[in-house]
């Protein structure tokens, strides 16, 4: 088996004096979409932020693409080929849709072909191209946020609860776009509470609880095993079904 693109081993993270991640072990295989599940407050967002260096791991190792990155600064980590779609979407509300994407394309000017691809899934973005992103609706903001991660090829994309608070039709739209992203050789680590979305996108799955990974396996196996779902995730899972 090839080495995973991203490996966390015994990662601890403290925020102030609070011990949030308490020894996270996680492997994200190349070319797959790994779903990170878990109850609210389990530490999923903290895990993603720690990978990016937005919180510093207090101990443990984070290897990405054969390099140890736990001690590096966020911009350096991101420059290695990681994109981030945060829970809060991180849209620059005062900048136009275009400028949001211009900044996301770090290496060069906007690539026409990739841009067309983005517009194919999210035509709204073309329509609002020169308008401040703050005027977009919640769903459109999420589209923009995901587009920013797709506008240049990245090795790894970290996505935090992209479907939160969105209408079902928009969720389906997002799922299609993410499926397309999977077709490229992008590796994805995604946090999701919506089990429908998780099941239709996930290859592998990891479940967190109280700052640790408590289960890893294939998404299909978890989807088939309701008892396991209930044990790992409680009732929160089925709410969105």
């Amino acid at each position, binding site marked *: 088996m090839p080495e995973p693109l991203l490996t966390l081993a015994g990662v601890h993270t403290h925020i102030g004096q609070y011990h949030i991640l308490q020894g996270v072990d996680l492997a994200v295989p190349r070319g797959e979409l790994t779903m990170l599940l878990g109850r609210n407050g389990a530490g999923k967002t903290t895990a993603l932020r720690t990978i990016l260096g937005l919180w510093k791991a207090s101990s443990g190792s984070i290897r990405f693409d054969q390099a140890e990155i736990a001690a590096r600064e966020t911009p350096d980590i991101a420059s290695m080929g990681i*994109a981030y779609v945060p829970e809060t979407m991180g849209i*620059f509300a005062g900048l136009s849709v275009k400028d949001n994407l*211009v*900044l996301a394309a770090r290496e060069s000017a906007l690539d026409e072909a990739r841009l067309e691809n983005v517009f194919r899934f999210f035509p709204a973005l073309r329509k609002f191209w020169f308008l401040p992103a703050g005027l977009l609706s919640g769903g459109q903001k999420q589209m923009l946020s995901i587009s920013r991660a797709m506008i240049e090829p990245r090795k790894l994309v970290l996505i935090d609860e992209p479907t939160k608070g969105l209408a079902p039709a928009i969720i389906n*739209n997002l799922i299609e776009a993410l499926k397309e992203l999977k077709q490229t050789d992008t590796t994805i680590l995604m946090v999701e509470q919506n089990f429908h979305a998780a099941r239709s996108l996930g290859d592998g799955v990891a479940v967190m609880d109280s700052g640790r990974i408590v289960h890893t396996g294939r998404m299909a196996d978890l989807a088939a095993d309701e008892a396991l779902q209930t044990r790992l995730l409680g009732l929160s899972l089925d709410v969105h079904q």
Partner: protein
Amino acid sequence: MTQPSDDQGPLPQARIDTIPLLILAGVVIVAFFLIGSASTWVTLTIAGVAMGLLIFIMASGLTLVFGLMDVMNFAHGLFIAIGAYVGVSTMKAFSSAAGSESFLENLGALAPTLLGAVVVAGLIGAFFERVIIRPVYGQHLKQILITTGGMIVAEQLIHVIWGPDLLPLPRPETLRGSFLVGDVAIEKFRLVAVVVGLSVFAAMMLVLNRTKIGLLIRAGVENKEMVEAMGYRVRRLFVWVFIVGSALAGLGGALWGMYQENVTVHIGAQMMVLIFIVIIIGGLGSVGGCFVGALLVGLVANYVGYLSPKVALGSNILLMMIVLFWRPQGLYPVNRQ
């Protein structure tokens, strides 16, 4: 292919919030009726705009520095003072050119004076960022204390170098006095201030809106973490913003010194209060707000100074209170995360 279902409905319009601009216009119009004399009104308006633009030059860097890194430099006035004092020394060195009747030769004194102020203030800004600010990034309390301490020490050092007395900072010969348009007297130097101020504003707007660096600064003010997560070094950006902001404060200080025609050690501390008021009124982190706020403060100070000199000094704080009651985040609140 799935049809996106979220792009129906009318296209929202991009619009800037015009209410603050209307208020600005309203102040100018109301002042016209209160003052009663057209020529006085024109003179005061030009004076107010000149003062406002000078304040804008000094304040714009500070508001960006705060927006970008959550750093409030209580020693920002130091750069103003440095600019003014370097201006005093340079103007003295070029006094023969400054005293000449030829405008071109005067420029030969004005240019090095302003350039000197910009360069020295920028260099000291770079030093200050490295030595004073960097060790206390993210620690607000220490930041306020350290920068205040830095201001005390720097003010004392200025005392040591330039002495405690009020020093004259004469304007170049051809920029003294005023000329008449009809029965309106316009001070020449105010026009210089307006030209320089508008140029700085235009250049800043161009950079912020049309270049990638500018976009990064604006994005960083809104959400620094996200900019870093996209792979950009906000710190490096911040250092340059700090340096440019200090240099601009130096430029503003030199111009302000000439505007007043003299310089005292307290110039920095005095301007600091005005600058705080302006950036609070404008909305912390907002360059556009800083511009409108500065004009508002400059105009109100001049109008009230004429109409009711007793209240003049306090008018700006009353203005700040009114604005904060109406919009607690300032005229143009910056959406920060």
